[in-house]
């Protein structure tokens, strides 16, 4: 046994003295940068950390954060939410999904409002709970409305595997799992993006490995640091990016060594591949259609694919984002939430107009909560 305690894994990575020290160091070195560093944190979790711990305020003027599309709840287009609502209303259905997904508005309603209408919709904290619900309700169809990036996808696959092994036949899946690299590429390719550094997600990286960001270095000459979740992690990662800039040697570095590796969790990757394959295209709220950016169930699991089984009742028209919403621009670093005309007025977390306001992780939401 080492002398590492569980509490250390929290407190040491939030240590005020360390944060202060890192801030000093960043200020010192950033002075030497010859152009402003515009860092995209892809992951909404990082956005959250940055806002909650006031990291933004600790940055020198020439380091700017651009909040990326890394919130699985925020990027879900309204038509997919409408799917969830429609599924929940089918007879004999229990609709399950993860946590705060239920408050995201679709075109007319949300799962929370639909639940208020008396439909059986259960917000879960654990994907594994779907198994227990299915066992307890053998005469119901339990639909798992699966959301999430590469971190969360393997859990859906693992659930399917257990269900099949245990002979549970009443779980159906509506897959909305999305991939991280395609939107990063799409943002860089848009030509407008002002991003010149990345901090890469903590837990997506644990699964897919740091290697997955090499294309940003190879193709866009942009430094990348895989960063842990805590404020100290983010501060250290920024420092590492500044150093890369000063060295003029862009590369993929791993700040989050205690959990992330170059190759990622191979078992989890295999599990995902066993059940899912890449969609031709997927529409992201705020970003529009991005080719090969999401997953679907393999054809051989069609009989458990709620998207196929209920195809005839699921609406399919694309629903445009609110015309005043500038989430797309925000995600590309071309605007800040506060630039939006309806920020904090018509658009608030209780009645969000755009994707960046819906979840605690969205850029507009984080601004509203912590720095309005």
């Amino acid at each position, binding site marked *: 046994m080492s002398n590492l305690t569980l509490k250390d894994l929290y407190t040491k990575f939030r240590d005020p003295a360390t944060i202060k020290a890192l801030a000093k160091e960043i200020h010192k070195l950033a002075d030497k940068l010859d152009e402003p560093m515009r860092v995209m944190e892809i992951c909404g979790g990082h956005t959250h950390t940055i806002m909650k711990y006031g990291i933004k305020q600790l940055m020198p003027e020439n380091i700017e954060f651009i909040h990326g599309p890394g919130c699985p709840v925020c990027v879900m287009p309204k038509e997919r939410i409408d799917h969830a609502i429609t599924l929940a209303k089918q007879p004999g259905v229990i609709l399950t999904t993860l946590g705060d997904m239920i408050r995201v508005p679709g075109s007319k309603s949300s799962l929370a409002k639909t639940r208020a209408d008396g439909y059986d919709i259960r917000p879960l904290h654990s994907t594994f709970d779907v198994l227990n619900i299915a066992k307890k309700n053998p005469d119901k169809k339990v639909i798992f409305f699966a959301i999430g990036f590469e*971190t969360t996808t393997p859990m859906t696959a693992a659930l399917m595997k257990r269900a099949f092994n245990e002979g549970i036949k009443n779980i159906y899946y509506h897959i909305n799992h999305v991939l991280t690299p395609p939107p990063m590429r799409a943002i860089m390719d848009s030509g407008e993006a002002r991003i010149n550094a990345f901090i890469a997600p903590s837990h997506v990286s644990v699964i897919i490995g740091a290697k997955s960001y090499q294309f940003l270095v190879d193709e866009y000459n942009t430094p990348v640091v895989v960063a842990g979740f805590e404020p100290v992690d983010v501060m250290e990662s920024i420092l590492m990016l500044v150093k890369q800039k000063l060295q003029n040697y862009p590369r993929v570095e791993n700040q989050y060594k*205690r959990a992330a590796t170059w190759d990622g969790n191979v078992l989890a990757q295999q599990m995902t591949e066993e059940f899912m394959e890449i969609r031709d295209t997927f529409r992201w709220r705020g970003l529009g259609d991005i080719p090969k950016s999401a997953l679907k169930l393999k054809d051989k699991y069609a009989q458990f694919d709620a998207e196929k089984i209920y195809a005839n009742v699921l609406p399919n028209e694309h629903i445009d984002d609110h015309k005043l919403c500038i989430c797309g621009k925000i995600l590309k670093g071309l605007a800040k939430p506060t630039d939006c005309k309806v920020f904090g007025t018509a658009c608030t977390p209780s009645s969000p107009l755009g994707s960046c306001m819906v979840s605690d992780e969205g850029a507009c939401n984080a601004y509203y909560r912590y720095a309005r």
Partner: protein
Amino acid sequence: MCLAIPSKVLKVDENNMAEVDTLGVKRTVSLDLIQEEVKPGDYVLIHVGYAMSKIDEKFALESIEVYKQLAEAAAMEEDAISPEKLVNEDGPLLYKPKAEDE
């Protein structure tokens, strides 16, 4: 993107499930996504009911040691930049309400 929580393994059962503790909160999670052996006392990252990786204690301790030294060094250095100075001048008010703008 994905909240994953460091937790300590208390028990592992024959069904490949582990009981883990997170600062006084106990829950049961699946180990179906972990290749390596998991033992009581190990630290794991938990996401939506599953362990997604073990935490490498060596690297964690290494980081902690680095931070400690960094903090000590900074404390000894002259306080060229006080922490308060690091904060943007307009404090948390990054957004000025529209009303005042006009």
